[in-house]
């Protein structure tokens, strides 16, 4: 085996570590394991085993390249499922507080920018879907910034949610109190009118 090939295998091992870490990270985030990512990692093992049996340098290069492509696809798939999960959570957040935009903006001033990031990430994964799925490994590096920026948004929304909930329940309580006060005032007015009418009828 040539020196360049040894270096390429070392780089491949680093890429594999990254892919494995990402798959685990997203598994913990989504609380589900992603079968497509695991499948890609399985193929990495297949090509690694094959390359050690090859004797021709070209064949070894070919196996290294194939293994590298599977690593990249595993990283892309892991990022993609992470992005999908976070977009689902952002969607649920938006729908939950759709009637309370003031509270949301008060707690998260950058909320509009966060939604824009979500829209960009959705566009990105949608574009890859439209293109050939087998080439998705080529986008593995492009996928990471979307994942990282959405992760920040997701963490912010998770922290902000209880604060918004508190504000919302406070506003609902205040609204209930005001309604109760209004009903009481109306009843008192009606009662005083009735009393006035009764007194008016009794006096000659």
């Amino acid at each position, binding site marked *: 085996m040539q020196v360049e090939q040894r270096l390429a295998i070392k780089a491949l091992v680093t890429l594999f570590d990254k892919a494995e870490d990402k798959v685990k990270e997203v598994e913990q985030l989504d609380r*589900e394991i992603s079968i497509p990512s695991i499948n890609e990692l399985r193929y990495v093992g297949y090509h690694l085993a094959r390359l050690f049996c090859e004797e021709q340098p070209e064949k070894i290069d070919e196996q290294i390249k194939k293994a590298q492509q599977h690593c990249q696809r595993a990283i892309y798939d892991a990022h993609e499922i992470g992005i999908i999960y976070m977009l689902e959570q952002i969607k649920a957040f938006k729908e939950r507080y759709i009637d309370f935009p003031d509270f949301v903006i008060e707690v998260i001033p950058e909320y509009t920018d966060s939604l824009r990031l979500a829209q960009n990430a959705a566009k990105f994964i949608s574009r890859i879907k439209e293109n050939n799925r087998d080439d998705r490994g080529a986008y593995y590096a492009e996928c990471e910034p979307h994942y990282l920026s959405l992760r920040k948004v997701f963490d912010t929304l998770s922290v902000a949610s209880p604060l918004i909930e508190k504000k919302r329940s406070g506003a609902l309580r205040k609204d209930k109190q005001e309604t109760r006060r209004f009903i009481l005032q109306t009843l008192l007015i009606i009662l005083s009118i009735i009393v006035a009418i009764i007194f008016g009828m009794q006096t000659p």
Partner: protein
Amino acid sequence: MNIEPLKNVFKTIFPEQEPKEFQEHSLFVRHLVSRFSSGNVNLQLGRFSTKITIEKRREQVCNYHFID
């Protein structure tokens, strides 16, 4: 800067102790899984995403308008 509200929020999200029922349930699940299976626990418990389920989820989020 008053960080008390933030601290309270963190305590709500990450409580020091999980509810008793949850702990018992979690322990039971782990015990059961460790007895009858080996390897990834999520996989053994049937918590996994296939290509088809991911595809459906992707379509749903991609068709959603985050900015109106």
